[in-house]
């Protein structure tokens, strides 16, 4: 590693605990507490004054759309990973629905290589479960797993792996590579033409409904399949109270299932669709207040394991139109920390230690990212995010690093500001602004 510089972080609170000093040297955490200042490397270290700030393990997103290759007008690996770094992340998983689809070793290695070249975060490509996301033929999962990209997460995200036999085979097959299938749970027939959550609001607005049962029935099927074949299953962007119940039941039976929730599903409800503003159009759709409450409770009690942003940037013309014609998706990388702090930490439902688990430790474990999501301990890779939890800011999509201006949090005041991010000991963010990318010797 080319990081020869040392950094002394003074007065930060690891996971919100007692203030301490952290010495970073040659990419790792070299010393903590009183030892930090007396360590030989401290003499030449750059001092970062962080009194009172929260020190967290660098955040890991299991669900990011970087759009490259194919939709560079919406996002590139460079712009998406800049956004990730500013949001406090040190790793993102790039979803497979690019163009061409990430269903071969060639495409995942291209995305991996672009990530290394950019140097803002680890980019871990997700491989498609089926060729072209078409849902009929399994893609070359083994080749992607054995490639330089070391793919461990496989998903047709955006489209449900609907064929039950194909889903069973995929769950079985990925076991050979310690992989996991991340399912986008959406029964296709029940959601034909669906525009928003089906319920009292859709009845008034005259928009075709996306019923909760379309998500829940697929999750119920898949946890039973995962139990039957003894495989790992991950459920993307859980959005309904019923889904939380089914996953809780599955875990109580010992099914090896993990689940994620997006920040927007923890805060926003389908009432916002009354404006017909497509910035609120997303898949799965915004649900009822009762669902939001159930998702928060499920995240707090461990039924839901992680936060996944489902960062989905779109060019402005995809949203500046009538609702039915608009693209689905919201940006999320630069607001995730603040929304989770607002909905979960400041409500007292979780601690900062829990925050580290759901945004770093657990997603790194699901994605098998060995050098991320680690303890803040001596000898560990220095992937560290510093947060000024007292700060308040107003969301301005035009001030973001992502190309997407489609943030549903526009104009909201949110807590928590990322002040610094260390990516393998290299500061990608300093003073709340992008610093420099980390240079890799191989890409």
């Amino acid at each position, binding site marked *: 590693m080319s990081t020869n510089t040392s950094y002394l972080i003074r007065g930060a609170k690891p996971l919100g605990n007692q203030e301490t000093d952290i010495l970073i040297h040659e990419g790792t955490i070299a010393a903590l507490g009183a030892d930090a200042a007396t360590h030989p490397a401290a003499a030449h270290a750059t001092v970062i004054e962080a009194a009172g700030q929260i020190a967290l393990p660098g955040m890991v997103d299991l669900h990011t759309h970087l759009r490259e290759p194919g939709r560079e007008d919406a996002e590139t690996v460079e712009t998406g990973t800049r956004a990730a770094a500013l949001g406090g992340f040190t790793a993102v998983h790039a979803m497979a629905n690019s163009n061409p689809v990430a269903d071969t070793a060639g495409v995942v290695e291209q995305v991996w290589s672009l990530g290394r070249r950019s140097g803002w975060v680890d980019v871990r490509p997700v491989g498609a479960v089926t060729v072209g996301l078409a849902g009929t033929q399994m893609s070359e999962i083994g080749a992607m797993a054995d490639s330089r990209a070391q793919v461990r997460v496989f998903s047709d995200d955006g489209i449900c792996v609907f064929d039950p036999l194909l889903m069973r085979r995929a769950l079985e097959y990925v076991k050979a590579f310690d992989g996991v299938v991340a399912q986008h749970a959406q029964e296709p027939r029940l959601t034909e033409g669906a525009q928003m959550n089906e319920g009292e609001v859709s009845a008034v607005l005259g928009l075709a409904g996306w019923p909760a049962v379309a998500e829940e029935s697929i999750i119920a099927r898949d946890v039973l399949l995962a139990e039957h074949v003894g495989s790992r299953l991950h459920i993307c962007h859980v959005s309904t109270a019923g889904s939380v119940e089914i996953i809780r039941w599955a875990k109580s039976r010992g099914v090896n299932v993990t689940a994620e929730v997006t920040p927007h599903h923890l805060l926003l409800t389908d009432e916002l669709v*009354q404006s017909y503003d497509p910035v609120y159009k997303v898949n799965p759709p915004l649900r009822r207040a009762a669902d939001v409450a159930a998702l928060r409770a499920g995240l707090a009690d461990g039924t839901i394991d992680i936060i996944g942003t489902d960062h989905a940037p779109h060019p402005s013309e995809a949203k*500046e139109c*009538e609702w039915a014609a608009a693209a689905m998706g919201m940006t999320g990388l630069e607001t995730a920390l603040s929304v989770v702090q607002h909905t979960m930490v400041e409500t007292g439902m979780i601690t900062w230690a829990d925050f580290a688990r759901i945004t770093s430790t657990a997603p790194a474990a699901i994605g098998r990212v060995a050098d991320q999501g680690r303890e803040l301990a001596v000898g560990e890779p220095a992937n560290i995010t510093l947060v000024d939890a007292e700060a308040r800011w107003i969301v301005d999509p035009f001030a973001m690093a992502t190309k997407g201006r489609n943030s549903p949090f526009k104009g909201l005041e949110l807590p928590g500001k990322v002040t610094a991010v260390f990516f393998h000991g290299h500061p990608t963010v300093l003073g709340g602004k992008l610093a420099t990318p980390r240079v890799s010797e191989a890409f």
Partner: protein
Amino acid sequence: MKHLLSTLDLSRADAIRILDIAEEMAAVGTREVKKLPALRGRTVVNLFFEDSTRTRISFEAAAKRLSADVINFSAKGSSVSKGESLKDTAQTLQAIGADAVVIRHGASGAPARLAATDWIDAPVVNAGDGTHEHPTQALLDAFTLRTHWSALHGHTSLGSDLSGMRVAIVGDILHSRVARSNLWLLRTLGAEVTMVAPPTLLPHGSHAWPCTISYDLDATLASGTDAVMMLRVQGERMHDSYFPNTREYSRLWGFDDARLAALDARDTGETIIMHPGPMNRGLEISSAAADSPRSTVLAQVANGVAVRMAVLYLLLSGDQQRPAPSDATRPAGL
């Protein structure tokens, strides 16, 4: 009132004002010279993304009777398939100098988007959007109902509402913008509403609506109604499993000759039969019912012109001093 997008946010006072002005406008329609100079020099654009000759010519007649210039902009097909976006179309109309835009669009909420964005400043009239609303249809239906109700009770219609009136709306509620607009307006005006439909053609979530829901047309008719509004049903719905076939639909939810006979045995014409048109004779309504003295189908068409005159008049020359209803506030739901 800056725009007319929905009847849900239409106040009772505004609704009655529109109906009262429409009565004056209706009187114009009976004169030899059917024209008022009120909107001389103003340009009304009929922006129709869906074919609807009936609604378009009704708005066209209304605007012309007020001496406005009318531009018919037919943009059939969705904005996506046509290649030009709704935004570009709206900005084009703004540049042309449209003073009001009457929009028909296949996508629910398209008129609300025009009104909420800065693409165009002109008042927007929703002439039917997707399966959302069709507010001028509801207003002309209310006008028709009020005329009948006040005559039945021997009082003047001006300034009155529909208190105590029982209205049944029958048919494909799920896909009907007419049903939604009528529900909100009829409730605002004091009427009681019963929605009658097969359960497959009622929206999930309609249990929360301020109306009675029934699957049984005969029971609803037997319990007494003052008006029965039959909705158009597309025969193709049977291919999506909403009902087995058109014969069964017609037998259970159509206003057929037997139901007309049962009604004739019960009263002497006090209950009226309405239909927004175009009718599927023999499917949701029999010819005998459509042509009976109870039918208000043609009165509804005539009233449509008067109501649309009133709406255009209020939006274009009515008092604009009142502040617009909180355009800047963020919608609820956070």
